[in-house]
């Protein structure tokens, strides 16, 4: 086994634990690189077809390339796609700064999906190396009835024994990619030849390193048009992955506020 094999095996183990313990369960598909890798891993874990829905929290503000990708690969990958519209921005806490408020529509969309489909757990593609608050996450992370995250009162989690038994009303986020890094993701995409939204590859000297919605996601300067070039670029850069995500930087604690309120 090489180190990519080990990462893959661990994620498959986590996905199988989640599938064994929670019903109904869904996988959040943002159309971004991490959740596409996660779907790929789920297809490996369940031998060809993901046995639960892929949930896209649709703000209506994805890039056209992302929508095209969704339409193609939900069929290609034989996904049971749920793509409901997120509630309108008027329903979001008005005290949040503008981009965060926009992003918070996804939190409402998430709550709506949980209410509508009764998901006991949702699988999401966050990684510890992305952002400081995500570094605190557990692989199986319980949320309160209002979907909030109390990072001070997280249960212990060790020896690959994940917390799977919770009082009624608890909602669980499962994080199969928590131990991966951005470079790991691209090395895996390269090895497995996993299709990606083309916006990740440079065009006219720019590419998206982290893909969000129109208006709150900025591309980076880049000439990386292939996966190898992206990996080389990442190994040389010292810029953070989410530098292009407006809501992370609006105020010092804006992303933390989003996350404790239930954002991914």
């Amino acid at each position, binding site marked *: 086994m090489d180190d990519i094999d080990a990462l*893959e095996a661990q994620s498959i183990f986590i996905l199988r634990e989640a599938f064994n313990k929670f019903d109904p369960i869904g996988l959040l598909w943002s159309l971004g690189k991490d959740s596409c890798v996660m779907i790929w891993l789920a297809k490996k874990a369940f*031998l060809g077809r993901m046995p639960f829905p892929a949930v896209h929290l649709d703000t209506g503000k994805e890039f056209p390339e992302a929508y095209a990708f969704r339409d193609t690969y939900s069929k290609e990958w034989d996904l049971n796609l749920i793509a409901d519209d997120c509630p309108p921005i008027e329903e979001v806490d008005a005290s949040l700064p503008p981009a965060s408020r926009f992003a918070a529509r996804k939190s409402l969309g998430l709550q709506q999906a949980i209410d509508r489909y009764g998901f006991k757990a949702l699988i999401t593609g966050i990684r510890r190396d992305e952002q400081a608050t995500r*570094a605190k996450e557990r692989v199986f992370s319980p949320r309160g009835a209002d979907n909030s995250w109390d990072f001070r009162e997280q249960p212990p989690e060790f020896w690959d024994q994940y917390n799977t*038994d919770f009082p009624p009303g608890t909602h669980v986020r499962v994080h199969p990619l928590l131990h991966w890094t951005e470079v790991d993701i691209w090395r895996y995409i390269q090895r497995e030849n996993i299709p990606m939204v083309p916006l990740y590859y440079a065009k006219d000297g720019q590419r998206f390193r982290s893909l969000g919605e129109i208006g709150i996601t900025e591309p980076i300067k880049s000439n990386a048009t292939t996966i190898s070039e992206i990996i080389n670029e990442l190994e040389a850069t010292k810029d953070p992955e989410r530098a292009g995500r407006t809501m992370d930087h609006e105020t010092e*604690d804006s992303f933390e506020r989003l996350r404790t309120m239930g954002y991914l």
Partner: protein
Amino acid sequence: MKNANVKIRERAFPIVIVGHIDHGKSTLIGRMLYDTGSLPTGKVEELQASCDRRNAPFEWSFVLDALQLERDQAITVDSTQIWFHTETRRYVIIDAPGHREFLRNMVTGAASANAGVIVIDAEQGVSEQTRRHAYLLHLIGIPQVVVAVNKMDLVNYSQERFQAVEAEMKAYLKEIELKAQVMIPVAAMHGDNLGLRSTNMPWYSGPTLIDAIDDFPRAVVATERPFRMPVQDVYRQDGRRLIVGRVESGQLELGSAITVWPTGRSADVVEIKQWAAAKDAKSITTGESVALTLNDELFIERGHVLTVPTARPRSSNSLSVRLFWLSSDPLRQGESLTLKLATAEYDVTIDSIDTVIDVSDLSRHRGTQVPQNGIAEVTLRSRSTITYELFHDLPALGRAVLLDGYDVVGGCIIEGGQDIEIASRNLTAVTQSVKAEERQATNGYPGAVLWMSGLSGAGKSTLAMALQRELFNRGLQVYTLDGDNVRNGLNSDLGFSEEERAENIRRVAEVSKLFSDAGTIVISAFIAPTNAARAQARDIIGDQFHEVYISADMSVCESRDAKGLYAKARSGEINDFTGISSPWEPPENPDLEINTGELTLNESLDRIVTYIEGKILIAKDKALDPSEK
């Protein structure tokens, strides 16, 4: 400062950094990230600006303490993972908090590390928390550590002070059998001996901290051990059953036989199922998550363990474990918990708290409870058979998490067990599906028959009832057979002739044996007047027969005569009354004699309970002494 990147394309090496709350772990990590060029562009400037806004001096620990709350309280709340790289390889650092009440978070982080760094304040020296953390690293199986003696700048880079701390720590580590590769004097705030050799401590010639961690070998993967795969789930796909799980040790070729535990059934692996694999798998190996098809539809479920037929796993109902306790409610003897071991879950009870360990001075004492953050050696008992390995042999099958309801309340490593042999069901049909030894292992004591004999009025029934209550209160399965509950039912067809009395005793002996075989402690209270009758009972019941003679002079018995039977016998109203109109042969060599004419009821009860404790309960499974490992 980014290095030649060949090594970066390798999984990060996990290390945990522990230490007392104020000994400077986070500072050390923040500075190490900076020195190795691992910080994102602008991070230090961003934090500097943040500090300026707060009118607080910049601290390296802020790099890690990125959450608002932590900056305000200046402590690390939860374990954080941080990636960095040296010229040799990539690392993921687990920063474990030092706060005593946050032990759970430390364990959460530290349990996945391959190596540890223990940070000690040169001025403060080895603290109780330092010792606790070192002990826990040892307990959860961190195989290698280095010690960083920090804040050397505060002791004027004194070699003498360093050596004092070094000696103190070495002595402790030696006692817990945790070997530190090296101890390094550092001043994290200024970067001395982290990445760069300190010019302030020319007396130190050992490695820098970065050099020392680069020297840690990767953990050895258990590929050389016999094949073990805990079953995670069983899927059905295209009419085939897929047994899925992660290989925890060894390797297996396609076509090989496996045996399932605890059922003992065997079958051959006929397919290794994959999706989008580069090539068809012909074998599976340690660490892989696999899906297997077998040539036989065996009963297999989550929690079972697949092994090679030639190397069976350990099986037991009674485990000796070393545990750490995380709950604020102390652990008490007799408590019922859930044990999660690999993919299995078992209901267990705390059979005994054998030793409570004080990690500050490593003293060991007996205790009735284990407090929060306490460490103890405990015997666990399970109703169902636990398939396991010793932690020392295979950590993945030798450690477990303890749950109380929904809450994780502790973790333990298995150091011994009262192993039982599981008959392989693939061989011939076994007459007994559950053996007496298994029942004994489950119950914690063997079935037994206390055969009380004595004259009418000697006090058999009174003592039997008191004894039954006493044993029941102790949680033992106990039942009393006496004239009332046997003669009215099973033996209602029998009278009191010599033959019928003999038949009565024979049947009572057979029933007693059945109860005893089923694991119950039986109290049989019958007159059983002759040596022949009691010898027959002993023959029927076998080793579990304990003859208890309730002796009292006939004059004493006759004077008690609660039911007026002696008077009726004397007057001839009752025939065949033992001792008067029918023979009475006192037992010649009873296992225990209790003279109720001389002893009070309580004294009599004490005698018989002492006997039971010494002769019956002593046979209770004893966990193997971990020191005999």
